[in-house]
């Protein structure tokens, strides 16, 4: 599922601190709600990747790659 454009993914990849902005984008797009945003902020990146896979926003393969390569891989997966 494409959550953002490739241009947006590139902007995220260049950010020094991306996590809050990514959660806000996912909330604005209706992929996570306020409660989920709060929970993911507390619990970190791995839980975010797991949640996106569970919601079928990203594939299992995307999830594995995101955990291996980090957020850059995740944001480009979200732009596919």
């Amino acid at each position, binding site marked *: 599922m494409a959550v953002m454009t490739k241009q947006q993914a590139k902007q995220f990849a260049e950010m020094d*601190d991306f*996590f809050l902005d990514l959660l806000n984008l996912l909330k604005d797009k209706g992929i996570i709600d306020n409660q989920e945003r*709060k929970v993911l902020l*507390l619990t*970190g*990146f*791995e*839980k975010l990747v797991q949640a996106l896979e569970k919601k079928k926003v990203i594939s299992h393969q995307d999830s594995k790659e995101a955990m291996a390569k980090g957020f850059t891989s995740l944001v480009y997966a979200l732009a596919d």
Partner: protein
Amino acid sequence: MYGWAGQRLRIDLSKGDIIKEPLSLEYRRKWIGGRGFNSDIIYNEVSPDMDPFDPKARVCFGVGPLNGTAAPSTGRVTVTCKSPLTGGFGDSSMGGHWGAEVKYAGYDQIIVQGRAKKPVYIWIDDDKVEIRDAANIWGKFPRDADTMIKQELKDEDIHIMLIGPAGENLVRFACTFNDVWRAAGRTGHGAVIGSKNLKGIATRGSGSVKIARPKEFFEICNRLRQAFKNDPMKMGLYEYGSLCLINIANRDGWLPWKNLQYGGTPLANNMSGETHAKTVLKHREGCYACPICCGRFTSIKDGRWAGEEFGGPEYEHAVPTGPRVGIIEDANDIWHNARLTNDLGMDGIETGGVISVAMEWYQRGLITAKDTGGLELEWGDEKVVDQLIQDIAYRRGFGDILAEGGDRASDKLGLGDKGHYYTITTRGMTLPGDDPRGLGFGYGLSFAVGTRGGCDHLRSLCCLELSGALYPGLNTKILGDERPAKPVTTVGKPYMVYYEENQKTVTDCLNVCCFTTHWCYTVLTQDQLDYFNACTGMDMSIEEFLEVGERVYNLERAYWARQMSGAREDVVPERFTKEPMPQHVDYQTNVGATLPINEMLPKYYKYRDYEPGTGFPSERKLKQLGLDYVAEDIRPLRKRYMSESEQKKKKYYY
């Protein structure tokens, strides 16, 4: 009742009242224990305008649901009060075995209030609690008082919390010990205890801690203990104690030399853990249930201090009265100074910090021998340092001024802004022996915003940037990015600090040692939650667990807000922002670095949901955390903080 004892002990030394108060399940779930219980009491019972030495002021000793169990390193105690050093929220944590003993005696927390008419100590023997005469131990070093109380009570197995002479003399950075050598060093609660004419609390507990799901609990504990055998940080800490950091700090330019004018010294190896182990280490020691055993016991064999023995030192104990004051050639001087601050009962960081700032005032001509009672405050002069440590503890001469802490001393000497420039403090408390221009920008950010002022290695530290690189993939797992593991960068640091502060706070609520979790990353947050749930029989989710940390952290921040301390006080000493790190060691890695604190603060505020103008927790955040009454308290203060008159005030302490 599983995990918790289910009650707190409140002792009023003015009235002689001894009261046991039950702790409801709802209350325990909201605050967990230790730091959480204590912060709640201090917020609600010690008003912002109360003098820390007022008899009505409280000092709290909190333990957690895991204290006294087999979970790794669960012997810690949180000590909390209104700090006489900063005038704001103050807490500190100590290891040892006293925490477990308090639990076995049947208490989750001890609150002391009031003031005894004459020196006393408290004797807790399970249900039986007595206030006893302490005339014969007043003035004694903790090591001697410990022996005398054990002889008096005819019990060698009791565990005792004690203060030293500095606490009795109201030195604003006096500290507390248990088992003689395990210190809760920071924020000056030893002086608050001394102001109550209380020498210590001796404890004997014959009870136990009930475990809700024992099979599951012991499987988790055994798994974690096995995992520790291969932990890379554990190996260094066991072999060399926290002094294992000396050579690393020197290489990366965060070892303070001469009040942090430099980040290292070519002779640092003289005091490294490796050298200590070869020369003066008598044996290693561990706190309750600890798989690491980072504690040292030192025996000086030669030179003028030959024959001196003591428990310690740690990195943060040895550095302040060593390289920070220019002493490095003879490491025995450093071990001696550490022994002396222990025996006298003072925070080593603050003691070395205030002596080193006085030396820099002297170096720069802000003070002369006329101000110091004739002492020439030359860097590296052990004779001067030895005398000043004792003069501070007994409040003699120039030492009486330094006993007030760096920022108050600067004002007493009339040094103005120049004097404060050289006090390496945040909110009135001296930063530890870690220069953030080398240790890491995350640490720098956490020093600026920490809820007890300048913090050290057991508070809002960012070990993801110190030891994260030793655990491949860890930064990605938590932060989604490996780049934040590099210390001298702002990348990922706002989220790192937010995450680690919550994690550390909940660890302090459990009263588990940070060295076993998020220093050695063998125990992660999920592991902590698993043994907490198995121990207590609760079914807490990971988010509820971490939200307790966020709740406690925001309550502490709100305490400062009530004292008109917020965004304008979220600063670091100007030395870090204005003075590029000079080169002092050939192989130093951080030459030229300054700390770009203002690049990180706005994003950090967004993570925390602090208001940009005031830096106070937003009303939305406080209500989300179930702190509606705190939101009510803070609401009228927001406008006041932004008023012209408040903005003109320079606040170095409260």
